[in-house]
């Protein structure tokens, strides 16, 4: 079969089938959050990140990063690169398009620009994140707090990238956990209050060797009038072995194909 020489009707039927299958997965048995026990013996490193500051770590395949929202902050932003090839990085557009959803929580994966899975969200007690609007910038701090000189995610991620030999063009999209944004019918974003709790955590399992950048700054659409993010905790730990029924690897066909693109890097 010549897949690039079919009639439009053939492609449409195929697209409709893929769409229906994907939306069924999303609307049907949505993944539920089950806390994963992180024993002390599995902990490799702990660090407290002060409000407004940044931290980064190398996260080898199979290890996980637990971000604990100790202070109940409105947002913790994360940028991701393939540690073995820094030109490969998180791609927000691909991540939402390939999974047919902007709702990135337990069971979903984050994609690179090369069709590979960077990390699996193996646990998310909050359930809400945003990868449409991005992290804070000098401009968003000027708008929200009247002070563009406050610490911001754009510059935090640039500092991390710079310390790893990268430059401005390596800092593109990020994802902000512990943030609940809803998109209205006219396209406008609405911040939904009341879903962020102190003590919430997200577990990200590395599916390739990663450079992970964390910026502890509030989401730019959060309603706070003063800039006062508290500390958060980052824990690098050894994730449990992956079983055949692993949620993130089996939840949807798109993720499964993403892993088929990723795993050959490590054979």
């Amino acid at each position: 079969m010549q897949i690039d020489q079919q009639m439009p009707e053939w492609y449409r039927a195929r697209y409709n089938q893929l769409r229906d299958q994907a939306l069924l997965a999303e609307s049907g048995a949505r993944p539920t959050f089950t806390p994963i026990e992180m024993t002390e013996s599995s902990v490799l490193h702990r660090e407290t990140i002060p409000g407004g500051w940044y931290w980064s770590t190398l996260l080898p395949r199979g290890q996980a990063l637990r971000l604990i929202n100790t202070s109940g902050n409105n947002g913790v932003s994360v940028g991701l690169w393939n540690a073995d090839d820094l030109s490969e990085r998180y791609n927000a557009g691909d991540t939402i398009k390939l999974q047919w959803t902007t709702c990135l929580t337990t069971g979903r994966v984050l994609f690179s620009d090369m069709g590979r899975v960077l990390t699996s969200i193996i646990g998310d007690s909050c359930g809400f994140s945003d990868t449409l609007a991005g992290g804070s910038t000098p401009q968003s701090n000027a708008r929200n707090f009247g002070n563009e000189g406050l610490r911001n995610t754009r510059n935090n991620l640039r500092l991390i990238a710079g310390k790893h030999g990268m430059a401005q063009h390596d800092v593109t999209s990020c994802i902000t956990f512990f943030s609940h944004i809803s998109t209205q019918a006219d396209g406008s974003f609405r911040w939904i209050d009341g879903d962020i709790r102190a003590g919430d955590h997200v577990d990200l399992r590395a599916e390739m060797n990663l450079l992970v950048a964390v910026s502890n700054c509030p989401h730019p659409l959060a309603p706070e009038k003063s800039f006062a993010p508290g500390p958060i905790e980052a824990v690098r730990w050894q994730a449990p072995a992956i079983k055949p029924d692993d949620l993130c690897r089996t939840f949807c066909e798109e993720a499964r194909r993403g892993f088929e693109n990723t795993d050959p890097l490590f054979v």
Partner: protein
Amino acid sequence: MPEYDISKVFSTITLDQVVAARVPWSGVVRKGQVLRIIDLESQQAVDALFYNAHAYHERYSAQDTLVNQGAAYIGKGGRLFSNEGNVLMTVVEDTCGRHDTLAGACSCESNTVRFGHETKYMHACRENFLLEVEKYGMSKRDIVNNVNFFMNVPIMQNGELVIDDGLSAPGGFVDLRAEMDTLVVVSNCPQVNNPCNGFTPTPIRVVIGDPVSI
């Protein structure tokens, strides 16, 4: 009806070119000039990247654009922001009303995930982008999430998103006024696996000129 008589829009035309289906195009739009992108046959997605023509490290940022306007789609009045928080271009006219900047451009690699591994060896927008930006000394690292003119990507309140049939009619257009000298890189999308171009890529027309003063 769409305005076909572009002499009423431009006092001087510096470029008027048809871009065939599936191929890339790039050009510089000087500050104050207008770029008109015309969807000649309807429903053709036009993937576009924007760079400060004098400093390519300043470029279009989808996330800056969305957070600054507080909304997911681009329409008339929309400002396209750079990663430095500056406005590259403003949408000053628009017959379609709905343009996407969330879903990014198709690539051989992402197509395998979305449509199956058998779609890997099909022409894709990021191949067009890569060949085009290399002419300016740039590389894959300079390709970011772009604007998809005339592409319809509705987001539901529950977070679902699909690529729906485009809303643009034959001859539909979007006018972009440059707020700084801007390098525009276009891939006239070859994707046939989703409805971004009715599963049939078609040509577009690009016009750059100085607008008639009002």
